[in-house]
């Protein structure tokens, strides 16, 4: 939501001064027409405070609903209706307060046309200022989002590079292969193949590309196979796929960082067998992916779970859908669960 214009200090000052000038002007005008001072002041106060209230109402309305510049007619109608409303109200109030002065009732009736023109003008100006301000804010926000997106695309690029080369993962895998070559050469060969396919997958895919869940799961399986060889019996991934979800789409390379996060968090925070559960659910217009890992609440704050991997997933989804509620984490009963919702684009 946009920031109210009244939080801008300079505007608040100018706005207040303008209103004081308007009120003083109004009173001086009446006084120069030979009306008593108290009448002039009361008339000015009643009409202008009413007008101020209506202006504030308009400012607040455009904050939530910003009309386009092209909707001139709507804006015009709104101003006309509000001016008439103001006119009726101020006429009634002024009559109540000042009809005891001789000749005022006639003067009021005669001056209604002038009063309403000025009010209409002021209301129009205030409305325009409000619309311009909020339009500008919207534009600024979308520009910010755009430049954020561009920056993130660069970061993702870097992250991807790091992912590809991921020193730890790569060197440890090579070390495992080295060990297998001596004892079990067949398995070493298999692992070389898996590692190559995995790395190729990372290089080939574009971060912006959408792929089917089936494709993403195949890629994930490669990664899990390698990690299983590395960690032996300690790592037990359990993958449960809702068959309906296989054709659902998601941004490429989204799942692997999630699972990697869970494996790191799970394996390095607990001792013994680590069960990583990965499941997918096809919901109406949504794909849900749930990844869970064990953790030790005594030694780790749940904050640790939101590592770089999770954050990048969250940012990517935010940039794609402008929603912050797509990644939900929960720590309960020594299990850390990450729930990711991927809205399905209707045209896809």
């Amino acid at each position: 939501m946009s920031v109210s214009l009244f939080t801008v200090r300079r505007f608040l000052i100018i706005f207040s001064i303008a209103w004081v000038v308007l009120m003083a002007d109004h009173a001086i005008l009446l006084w120069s027409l030979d009306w008593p001072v108290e009448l002039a002041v009361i008339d000015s106060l009643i009409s202008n405070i009413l007008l101020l209230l209506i202006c504030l109402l308009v400012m607040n309305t455009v904050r939530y609903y910003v009309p386009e510049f092209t909707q001139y007619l709507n804006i015009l109608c709104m101003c006309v209706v509000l001016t008439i409303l103001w006119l009726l109200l101020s006429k009634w109030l002024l009559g109540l307060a000042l009809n005891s002065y001789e000749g005022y009732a006639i003067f009021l009736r005669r001056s209604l046309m002038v009063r309403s023109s000025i009010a209409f003008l002021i209301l129009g100006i205030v409305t325009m200022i409000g619309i311009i301000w909020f339009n500008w804010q919207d534009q600024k926000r979308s520009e910010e989002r755009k430049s954020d997106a561009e920056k993130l695309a660069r970061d993702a690029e870097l992250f991807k590079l790091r992912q590809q080369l991921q020193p730890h993962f790569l060197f440890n895998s090579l070390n495992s292969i080295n060990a297998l070559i001596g004892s079990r050469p067949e398995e070493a060969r298999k692992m070389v193949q898996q590692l190559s396919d995995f790395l190729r997958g990372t290089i080939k895919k574009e971060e912006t590309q959408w792929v089917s869940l089936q494709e993403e799961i195949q890629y994930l399986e490669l990664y899990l196979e390698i990690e299983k060889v590395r960690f032996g019996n300690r790592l037990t991934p359990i993958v449960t796929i809702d068959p309906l979800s296989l054709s659902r789409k998601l941004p490429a390379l989204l799942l692997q960082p999630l699972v990697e996060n869970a494996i790191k968090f799970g394996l390095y925070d607990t001792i013994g067998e680590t069960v990583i559960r990965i499941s997918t659910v096809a919901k109406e217009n949504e794909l849900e992916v749930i990844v869970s890992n064990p953790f030790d609440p005594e030694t780790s704050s749940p904050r640790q779970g939101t590592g770089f991997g999770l954050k990048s997933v969250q940012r990517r989804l935010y940039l794609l859908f402008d929603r912050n509620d797509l990644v939900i984490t929960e720590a309960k009963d020594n299990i850390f669960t990450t729930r990711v919702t991927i809205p399905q684009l209707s045209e896809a």
Partner: protein
Amino acid sequence: MSKVIIIDDEPLARSIVKEYLQKHPELELITECGDGFEGVKAIQQHQPDLIFLDIQMPKINGFEMLELIEQPPNVIFTTAFDEYAIKAFEAHAIDYLLKPFNQERFDKAVAKWMEQQQNNANTSAKTEELLDTASQSPSQSNRVVVKNGSKIKIIPVHDIFYLEAADDYVKIHTQEGYFLKNKTMSHFEQVLDAQQFVRSHRSYIVNVQQITRIDPYEKDNHVAILRSGLKVPVSRGGYGKLKAVLGL
């Protein structure tokens, strides 16, 4: 005959060291461990002459494990860590093997160790120096590992109320009472985040996030009242430091 222990969480990484060890009949492999806890136990039980140690391991890492042992044995690191991290402790380690490594490189490390064994009877001082260097890396500072009897306790730093000097030890006060660690106050001053932990007094380091208020106390002195109701002395110099960190 020298006693050797391998500590690494990846079974294949242990098996490659085991394979390379076969060329060295003078080294006897006593046992192998999959994590730091097993490692501490095995080292205390067998008093090995040399250990091959991985750094990234479950629960406690290789450095933290070494900190828990009173007289650490000689260490050859086997790790996939990048060179930046390696450089920090390069000067003090017997050797480090960057995974993956071959038999030749392994033999070299063993030879280096043997040479040092002959030249210098007391090499364990080196391991302690190494630890001092290694534990200053920032990644180490978000928790403190202590030994509580036979149990190993991992204390996240935000759970620490304050630290108190006690002879050769430092008392780490937490919700569950205090734990002793054989380190100096200045060590903790260096390792812990200076924005969170302030040396309020010659013998005290306080966690500023635990402070609820600071009251004057006698002449020139103050006392910090913690959320738990505990009181920590604040000297004149310490008061200045606290004010700076709290932005007063």
